């Protein structure tokens, strides 16, 4: 609903509306990114290469950020339990390789194999979150952590045999990073790729995101989607109007988990490696701060927030190392990233925008 109204506005009205709804921290971040872009030619960085990097990384990460939307909309808060969905994706990825699929096919098989895990884990996760309304975010964080550390044991114990994945010497236990060369590395990014000099656009990757984003947007305009938004903005009212709030929350959690599973697979195809063990541990935080930077609050998020937020966040992550390092000769990019992303989450948590729970 939110996305629709903002899209219907005129360009000028939209900019004004954005400034109003953005709030100061978002404006500062956007201004900072603009400064980085302006400064980049002066410090000898090729702006087209930079832009290509930002767009590439946007494509990798956007779906993970999109996974926040359903849960935020249904009133479950920010999905700090993203690692749960990521684990489903990782199970899909590793099983797809284990079963011997290669090339582009392995990507779609991975999605297909990840889906049942996402549905099962999402159902359990949704059931848990329905029992603890009001304390979702803290518990979601720890559900994610427990799941990741539990899977650390499983990655060792599960009987994987594909020689590309297991440790060479012992022949069992998965490696910490698995190369996707020959599997689905760059499969979306190289599809319909446009290349002009040093500037290239991974059309396939962006198209994939667009399809999913459109699907989510369309979903929120169906009857179920509207009911879900209602359950999020005012559960008591929604209940009075005959909406099954618990069911809506459950559906949203399953959607979020499934989108996270797809999201990590898309991330992997861009990155070229499957990272397991402790890698998914802190993956929720960048996604959470990205959607908040995009203008979402703890209980309201739209597709537009996802797009703006991912672009701004990934822009800062990619631009700071090159530009800042050339200016002050110090690698402060990591620190800037930590402060910006967590500062943004703090800002959102301290707003008094939370609806009645």
């Amino acid at each position: 609903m939110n996305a629709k109204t903002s899209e219907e506005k005129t360009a000028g009205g939209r900019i004004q509306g954005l400034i109003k709804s953005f709030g100061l921290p978002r404006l500062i971040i956007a201004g900072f990114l603009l400064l980085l872009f302006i400064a980049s030619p002066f410090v000898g960085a090729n702006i087209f290469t930079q832009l290509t990097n930002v767009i590439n990384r946007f494509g990798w990460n956007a779906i993970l950020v999109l996974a926040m939307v359903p849960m935020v909309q249904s009133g479950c808060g920010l999905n700090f339990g993203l690692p749960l969905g990521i684990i489903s994706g990782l199970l899909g990825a590793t099983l797809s390789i284990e079963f011997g699929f290669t090339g582009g096919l392995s990507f779609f098989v991975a999605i297909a194999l990840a889906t049942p895990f996402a549905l099962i884990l999402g159902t359990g996760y949704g059931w848990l979150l329905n029992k603890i309304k009001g304390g979702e975010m803290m518990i979601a964080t720890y559900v994610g952590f427990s799941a990741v550390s539990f899977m650390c044991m499983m990655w060792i114990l599960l009987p994987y045999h594909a020689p590309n994945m297991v440790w060479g010497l012992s022949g069992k236990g998965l490696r910490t990073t698995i190369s996707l060369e020959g599997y689905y590395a760059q499969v979306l990014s190289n599809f319909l790729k446009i290349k002009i000099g040093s500037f290239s656009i991974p059309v396939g990757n962006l198209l994939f995101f667009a399809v999913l984003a459109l699907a989510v947007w369309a979903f929120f305009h169906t009857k179920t989607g509207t009911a879900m938004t209602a359950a999020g903005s005012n559960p008591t009212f929604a209940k009075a109007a005959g909406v099954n709030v618990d069911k809506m929350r459950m559906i949203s959690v399953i959607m979020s988990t499934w989108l996270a599973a797809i999201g990590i697979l898309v991330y992997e195809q861009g990155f070229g490696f499957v990272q397991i063990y402790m890698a998914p541990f802190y993956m929720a935080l960048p996604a959470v701060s990205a959607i908040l930077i995009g203008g979402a609050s703890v209980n309201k998020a739209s597709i537009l927030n996802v797009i703006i937020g991912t672009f701004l966040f990934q822009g800062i992550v990619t631009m700071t190392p090159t530009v800042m390092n050339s200016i002050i000769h110090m690698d402060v990019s990591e620190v800037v990233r930590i402060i910006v992303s967590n500062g943004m989450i703090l800002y959102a948590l301290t707003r008094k925008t939370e609806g009645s729970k």
Partner: protein
Amino acid sequence: MKNNTTTQMSFGKKLRRFLSDNPVPIMFIIICAVCIPVSGFSPGYLLNEIMTRMGRNTFLILCLLIPIMAGMGLNFGMTLGAMAGEIGLIFVADWQIYGIPGVVLAMIISIPISIVLGIFCGKVLNMAKGREMITSYIISFFINGVYQLVVLYMMGPIIPIKHSSIRLPRGYGIRNTVSLLNMRQCLDNLMSITIKGVKIPVLTFIIVGVLCLFFVWFKKTKLGQDMRAVGQDMEVARDAGINVERTRIISIVMSTVLAGFGMVIYIQNMGNLPTYTAHSQIGMFCIAALLIGGASVDHASIKNVFLGVILFHLMFIVAPSTGTKITGDSMIGEYFRVFVSYGVITVALTMYETKKRRIKSRAGQQLKADQKGDEADE
């Protein structure tokens, strides 16, 4: 009163009550009971390890009690105090002050930093009432960024650091590990007693004991009573004339300052300071230990701290080698203990939230019955 009646009860009754009240500790006692024989460690070794680790860690866990009393849940922001303590230690290492004076000076340096960070944390938490835990958790990440900015970039050019032994070769920033060999276990070794190979760090235990006595006394002071009132119900406390915001900030500041002291004690026992990683897990481990001791989000006592620190560390010592013996892979045990730490926090938080919700819905139903209206149902 409750305590009084329990002490008068027969042992059997006490045991039964203990079992039903403390599902988490019981589970851990069982885990440890299974793991200890399998791991093959001698009792003497285990006892020695437990003693060392108790001395190291108890003070840090105790600092969590005050925010729980003030109803602010588990203070993940204790990491802030830990960082303040580390900054104190970095300065002391730079000034080459050895032994006990170094430890004391590090604690003194940490106090103003802890107070500033504590006030910041308290103010932010006052803006996020009802979700203190997740907010304090994110604050710890945020301040970690600031800490890195200060320690990695400002120490050297802005904050003078003399000794090249702790400075990075590039000229600014602190090395990944700062050696504190000159103050290693100086607190623990002073007045330590060794009984049959088991070293007891008496002075550290005395300090912990003094802190426990302080808590017992503090609960009875005006401020302590105010905190408990705020923890029970903020609105009622405010009506009673208590400055709720100020009380909450004080509770966080106290916790942060104590966490700073605790971190100095912790690090002097370790003997070296991992500059950028020492504080990253400390909040999680302390909270897990407290919860394993049978505490919950809204209730924790000194007893929980001691039971928790013993059980948690017992599990931590025996899990890796048990895992190796059973599965033949040394990493399994490592991951198992991490999983258990996170798992127990998840379970404890879930139990607390479901309980809170049950009470709330019962109150709602009561109201519904009273009003015969339907707007009160949850």
